[in-house]
């Protein structure tokens, strides 16, 4: 390895790369270098924080716009006030979409977590490496292929000449018209939530104390009982964590209602965009955004707290 002592006696022809290294070393040893060294972590993090600050500023502008009256005809910002919020809270469309979003988010998040628990158990405990790998690949498919490919797939599966119709015709049932209903949206939503839930649950599943399961079985517990009374309680905090994350994700879902619901069953996210662009009342869209952030934060926080509270009351 090079040190500067060696560098003094170095022959005249030194590769440019090493000259650069030596230059960096001398900078580090100078007073300037010492100053930089102490400030380095802050200096390295600051640009990233400044960049995210751009988004924070955007959210700030959004909140600011939501606190002003707006002239849709002239496109001018009016007086300061909470008028947008009171208008929106009394808006029929908003109320319907709010109820739909909250109830669908709750149902889909619960289903996703209920599916994710056995999924992560099987994934973590399979003794075949290929099963584990395959399940892992499968988890990332919906994320890496993106919203469009995902929902396009559902349109093809559920659509008028797709596999669903084909199966129904074989059995002799009238094919249901699923696209544009909550069923289609629900399927699409659970598909994106499941991977998130599995990724959050996995560490807890890997930490499970298998001695306890052995003990339960030795004492004669059936597998279902072992699952309910030994495995599940150990996964409680992680399950609530997964539930909170899934709920937050589902609350902000835009692509599924937009594409699979075809604008017939809007969520708050779609309502927001419609107000912003189609109906041309940006401040009401902005107000919806602020309400959405508040709801997501409060709801996810509440779910996390519930997970902890129950654990403290009944320590395992």
């Amino acid at each position, binding site marked *: 390895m090079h040190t500067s002592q060696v560098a003094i006696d170095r022959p005249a022809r030194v590769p440019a790369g090493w000259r650069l290294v030596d230059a960096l070393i001398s900078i580090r040893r100078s007073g300037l270098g010492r100053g930089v060294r102490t400030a380095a972590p802050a200096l390295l993090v600051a640009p990233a924080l400044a960049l995210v600050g751009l*988004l924070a500023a955007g959210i700030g502008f959004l909140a600011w716009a939501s606190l002003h009256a707006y002239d849709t005809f002239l496109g001018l910002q009016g007086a300061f006030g909470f008028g947008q919020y009171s208008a929106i809270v009394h808006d029929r469309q908003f109320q319907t979409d709010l109820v739909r979003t909250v109830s669908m988010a709750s149902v889909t998040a619960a289903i996703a977590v209920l599916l994710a628990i056995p999924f992560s158990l099987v994934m973590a405990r399979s003794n075949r490496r290929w099963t584990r790998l395959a399940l892992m690949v499968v988890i990332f498919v919906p994320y890496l292929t993106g919203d469009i490919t995902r929902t396009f797939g559902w349109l093809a599966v559920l659509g008028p000449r797709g596999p669903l119709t084909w199966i129904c015709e074989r059995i002799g049932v009238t094919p249901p018209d699923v696209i544009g209903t909550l069923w289609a949206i629900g399927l699409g939503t659970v598909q994106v939530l499941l991977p998130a839930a599995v990724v959050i649950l996995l560490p807890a599943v890997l930490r499970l104390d298998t001695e306890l399961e052995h003990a339960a079985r030795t004492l004669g517990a059936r597998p279902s009982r072992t699952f309910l009374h030994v495995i599940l309680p150990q996964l409680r905090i992680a399950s609530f964590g997964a539930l909170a994350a899934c709920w937050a994700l589902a609350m902000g879902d835009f692509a599924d209602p937009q594409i699979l619901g075809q604008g017939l069953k809007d969520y708050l996210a779609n309502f927001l965009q419609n107000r912003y662009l189609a109906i041309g009342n940006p401040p009401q869209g902005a107000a919806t*955004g602020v309400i959405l952030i508040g709801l997501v934060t409060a709801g996810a926080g509440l779910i996390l707290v519930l997970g902890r509270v129950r654990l403290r009351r009944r320590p395992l």
Partner: protein
Amino acid sequence: MRGTTFPVPRLLTAAGVVLLVGPTLIVLVASVSVGRQIVFPPHGFTLDWYAEIVRDGPTWSALLHSFHVALVAVAVGLLFGVPAAFALPKIGAGKRLVVILALSLGLSTPIIVSAFSFFEIFARLGVYQHLTAVGAAIGIVNLPFMVWPILSALEDQDPELPAAASTLGADPVEEFLFIRLPLMTPGIVTGAIIVFVLSITDFVLSQVLTTSANQTLPVFIYSGLRTSISPGLGAASALFIGIATLVFVVVLRIGGVERFLLRRSSS
């Protein structure tokens, strides 16, 4: 412990697998079938729809726009995310949590709200509807995916290595350049690849921030979906499946994902 004996978890897992990949497989099959409409069971085999992507002007330019956006997002991640990830372990635990939470702002905010926040700020900065700005927005939202793989690569490093290097006479500069940086590279590459894929497939941000003149491929497919579900659009979507698969193989080869997901915290 090996193997759960009751079949219920396996059945549910199978259901999960169908839910996760079933529609994607249908897209793949549909993209190589003959006919102007997607029909099940599929008939015929053709690669025409893929050739169409290159031949069809609007599809091709939408694909190029997507690449533009994704490359900008990766550049944002490399320029801003990598230094931050490298500095994070050197910051005190309390401050570190705050910084990590701040960097994850784009992930914790509902994506549609982020989209319109960028809409507001870009309009004020005069860069609204520029593809590079769209790429930057996507890069900011996906910044955590750049930072996490690097943090986990740093966590995996042998803490004795810096000491060993300096015992052998390495200057801290050399130790960084020749020891820590090479060990971080898999994390950086993984992060860059994940950000690239998430950005090239982005839909929600792009559909707010682009216009019909510079729309990206997902937005282009979306406008097509409103009229018909054709195999042509299927091929364009299948392209994303191809990209995702390729990337996944690379990431898996570089390693880390399996170890990261299935690591056991206690022995």
